[in-house]
């Protein structure tokens, strides 16, 4: 794997009117890895992906896919990639088989080969029974699997996955993850975007965190999580006035900086291990700090964001809304500042 990078992008910029949706992003994806681009809605993930996939012109900067320049030779790049996105999908008026056959034919397969490839993919993705059903009758999970199958018909070496599991139930999500891991064992490289920290953690070897069109962090999932601790202690203080004191206790016992929400008296504490939560609570009891609720959770994207950027991420918004890549940028930076 000393070969050229699967993706080599430097200083990518995309502006929509006054909004710099992508504002100078560098990405370096090695061959054969799963690379995750993590960020909230409107961060510019999809826009960056669409630029790399030749769907949007690159305003500034440059990108290469396996050494082929995206701006100068888009037609060659398109022979190297497959894209499955929130929007790139299949034809709803055709059956699954017809879709796959058509995509194969369009990309130069002979009719018999396209039919055979369609059959193989439908079997691989457990869609054989639905092969001749209209897409309208497909469940969300089946639909995603078919979308992915359609990207794989000519077995491109680089697959772009734009939020592959957004809106899927947990079981289907797990299946999708297995499928994505399988792609890499076949020699593919995967670049995926997600707004779920656990998804990036599960799949990606390396992660770039994107916020407001910029890359704010990059590293392995472990490096990223180290910056926020492995778990988070969430405390609701009974008296807002105790905040100052509570903060001191947390700093002393857990050695971590608490994230405060002054209006509601809420406090989030990043912890190395969940065990430390007990120590913090004992410290509170000894100092007479009253609490109304307590919970220990895995760190959320919001906390990663807070740790890295100093502000939270509004990832609540459902990404299932229809539209184009521009709408993600248009949805804009409504980042909620819960804390100063």
């Amino acid at each position, binding site marked *: 794997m000393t070969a050229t990078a699967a993706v080599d992008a430097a200083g990518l910029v995309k502006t929509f009117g006054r909004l710099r949706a992508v504002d100078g992003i560098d990405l370096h994806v090695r061959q054969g890895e799963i690379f995750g681009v993590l960020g909230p809605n409107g961060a510019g993930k999809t826009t960056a992906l669409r630029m790399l996939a030749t769907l949007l012109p690159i305003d500034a900067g440059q990108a290469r896919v396996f050494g082929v320049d995206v701006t100068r030779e888009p037609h060659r790049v398109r*022979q190297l990639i497959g894209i499955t996105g929130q929007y790139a*999908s299949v034809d709803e008026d*055709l059956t699954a088989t017809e879709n796959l056959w*058509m995509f194969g034919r369009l*990309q130069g397969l002979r009719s018999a080969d396209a039919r055979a*490839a369609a059959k193989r993919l439908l079997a691989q993705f457990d869609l054989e029974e639905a092969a001749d059903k209209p897409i309208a009758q497909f469940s969300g999970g089946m639909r995603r699997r078919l979308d992915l199958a*359609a990207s794989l018909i000519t077995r491109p070496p680089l697959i772009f996955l734009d939020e592959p599991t957004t809106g899927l139930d947990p079981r289907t999500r797990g299946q999708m993850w297995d499928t994505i891991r399988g792609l890499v064992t076949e020699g593919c490289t995967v670049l995926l975007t997600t707004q779920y920290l656990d998804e990036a953690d599960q799949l990606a070897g390396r992660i770039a965190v994107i916020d407001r069109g910029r890359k704010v962090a990059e590293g392995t999932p472990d490096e990223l999580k180290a910056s926020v601790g492995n778990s988070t202690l969430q405390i609701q203080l009974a008296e807002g006035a105790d905040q100052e004191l509570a903060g001191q206790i947390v700093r002393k016992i857990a050695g971590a900086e608490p994230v405060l929400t002054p209006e509601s008296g809420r406090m989030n504490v990043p912890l190395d291990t969940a065990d430390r939560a007990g120590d913090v609570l004992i410290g509170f009891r000894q100092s007479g700090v009253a609490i109304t609720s307590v919970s220990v959770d895995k760190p959320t994207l919001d906390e990663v964001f807070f740790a890295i950027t100093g502000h939270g991420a509004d990832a609540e918004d459902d990404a299932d809304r229809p539209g184009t890549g521009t709408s993600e940028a248009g949805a804009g930076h409504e980042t909620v500042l819960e804390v100063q």
Partner: protein
Amino acid sequence: MTTITTAGPASAGPASASTGPLHAVDPVAVVARTRPRTTITETVSQTLIMAWRALKKMRRNMEQFFDVTIQPLLFTAMFAYLFGGAISGNVHSYLPLLIPGIVAQTVLTTCMSTGVNLREDMEKGVFDRFKAMPISRIAPLAGPMVADLVRYLIAAGLTIVTGVIIGYRPGGGVLGVLGAMVLAIFTGWALAWIFTWIGTIARSARAVQGMSMMILFPLTFLSNAFVPVTSLPGWLAAFVKINRSRTWCPPRVAWPIRASSAARPAGRCSRAWS
């Protein structure tokens, strides 16, 4: 040509190219195989596949045929009985003037739906996939247009059949009628590219519809398609004289109109029909 690599001798049969176990993807080999652009042959074959897709979609959305079936039937009968007496004295003598006009109008309306359908199609996710595929850029646009030839044929054919049922007897005979249909379909198809272009620049299918109506309505009605030019006020007659060639007639064909008498306003163009 095929991008799928075979593994091994094991799997028997001609389909082994893609049913056998697959080699791992080799990026270097794939990069080496890439070509900088599509060839003409590929463009033609991709356009035909896109036309296949459009025909499948038409068959599964039969309501798309309403405009090319109901409109010719309804408009022909309605206009003939409504205006026949007023304009030409009786229905029968109005038909040679009317039928070519309706053919032009329905073919133009069909053009319009080409643009509207394209816009709707482009809003769907599958179009993004087409754009990210190494295929000719024109194929997703040209494919539906090729498929639309079926719609033009139905529109033009039904109009003439309705006319014949009402009592229209084309003077040009079968060959004349066929020639006229080919001319109308060809002209409609040529004009449809304008609406396809509108389809690609407009923001929504509704906008395409609105823009197209604005172009089509004046051009079809402010002409000698339905009424003799002599019946119009001077300023309108002047416009119609420019537009009179039934909108879609090539200038060379339209030119002899000048030579024909006012009683035969349709001129040579309609002679092909009547």
